[in-house]
């Protein structure tokens, strides 16, 4: 064992404090396994919603328009990839580049949803969402994203992200994409410009709130560090 450190140094005192404070810990499972645990909860909600929703009408809508398929695929993949990226980023030695993992799927989601808008010009008979329907979309996305984000943040806090804001941002994207995917069960109309704007606003609201609030929740580790260091130095 290396005992070369000076016995009186602050470092040595800190090491003694930490070693005497040591409790056995359970190793975290791999990030991908933890991500799929969260996605399993989302899938369980999806199954519960499928029981209530009219699934055959959903299938009919999706088979009628290719871009809706792409949009749903994009949002689903965004949720899956963003969840994996968030769990990767929650590790202290994670690379920032993980944050780009959901980017291609996110792009597909945005482009396909935007393409849906154009159809309302080509097909005048398409049902366009009015304001009350758009408000329902907003409430659904935000209402579902809040508990999903909460669960995700609780799970992420078990690790130790050294980039809390980025982790929270990606976690917000995962929750918002999951909520937007589940919205399709109750979305009997195409994404027209007003509706799309509401979706974008809802998703941005969820991501922004996560970034601002959850970033701080994940960053409380740093505050605790400073407190502990103060104690260690005063000993």
């Amino acid at each position, binding site marked *: *064992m*290396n*005992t*070369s*450190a000076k016995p009186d140094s*602050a*470092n*040595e005192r*800190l*090491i*003694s404090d*930490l*070693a*005497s*404070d*040591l*409790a*056995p*810990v*359970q*190793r*975290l499972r*791999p990030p991908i396994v933890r991500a799929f645990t969260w996605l399993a909860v989302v899938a369980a909600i999806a199954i519960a919603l499928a029981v209530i929703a009219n699934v055959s009408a959903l299938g009919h809508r999706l088979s009628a328009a290719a871009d809706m398929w792409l949009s749903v695929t994009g949002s689903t993949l965004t949720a899956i990839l963003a969840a994996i990226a968030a769990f990767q980023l929650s*590790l*202290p*030695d994670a*690379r920032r580049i993980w944050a780009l993992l959901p980017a291609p799927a996110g792009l597909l989601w945005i482009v396909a949803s935007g393409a849906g808008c154009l159809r309302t010009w080509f097909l005048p008979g398409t049902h366009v969402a009015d304001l009350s329907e758009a408000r329902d979309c907003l409430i659904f996305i935000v209402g579902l994203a809040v508990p999903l984000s909460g669960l995700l943040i609780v799970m992420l806090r*078990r*690790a*130790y992200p*050294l980039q809390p804001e980025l982790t929270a941002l990606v976690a917000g994207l995962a929750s918002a994409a999951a909520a937007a995917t589940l919205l399709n069960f109750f979305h009997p109309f195409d994404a027209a410009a007003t509706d799309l704007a509401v979706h974008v606003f809802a998703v941005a609201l969820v991501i922004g709130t996560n970034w601002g609030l959850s970033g701080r929740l994940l960053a409380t*580790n740093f505050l*605790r*560090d400073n407190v*502990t*260091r103060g104690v*260690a130095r005063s000993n």
Partner: protein
Amino acid sequence: MMASSSWAASAGPFPARHASKDVIVAAYSWSRRPERRMNAVLTQDADTDLRRSIWMAAAQAGDGAAYRALLRDCIPVIKSAARRRGVAADHVDDVVQDVLLTIHRARQTYDPRRSFTAWLYVIADRRAIDLIRRIRRQDLREVHAPLAFEDHADQTADPAQGLVYADATSTVTRVMASLPARQREAVQHLVLEERSLADTAVLTKRTAGSLKVNLHRALKALRERIERWD
């Protein structure tokens, strides 16, 4: 709580890839990531890395002795990472302490199948960057102006404070001088010099019990005499 030094027994599952010295160096030598390239240098001796992994796995199981050895072993690596990032010499110990605390808080995230030194190096590098940013932010907020500081009048200063303090000090010194030698000794070491009971016992060759009794009597006498003096 200190567990016995049974780290070798409680180390848990270990990868076959640690078995060869060449494997870790080979795994990172091609890497474009600077910390991995650096790590290839740091883990030239793969045995060191394997030993750290075993210590960390034992620490995860609650072995305090292995943990203490591991943290001591980490200090040179952390200092090297901090210096490489350009942390000033007088702040290197801050990075060391930040990283030691981070290891402690994040120990459940370490997977013993992976290189410990690589894990440590990335954390140390990130903490060094955090500290540099913190110092830069602090420098932006604070101005170094020693003359302005000296010229600034302290509104709360009381000119008589020095006299009051000197008076109180001389009272305590005089009352202290009137105490019996053993009691004076107890106050001197335990209160004024803030030594521990064990250290004072060794220094004065008295038992801890006798020191406690003498200190108790001395404080009681001091309280009575100072009140009388006032």
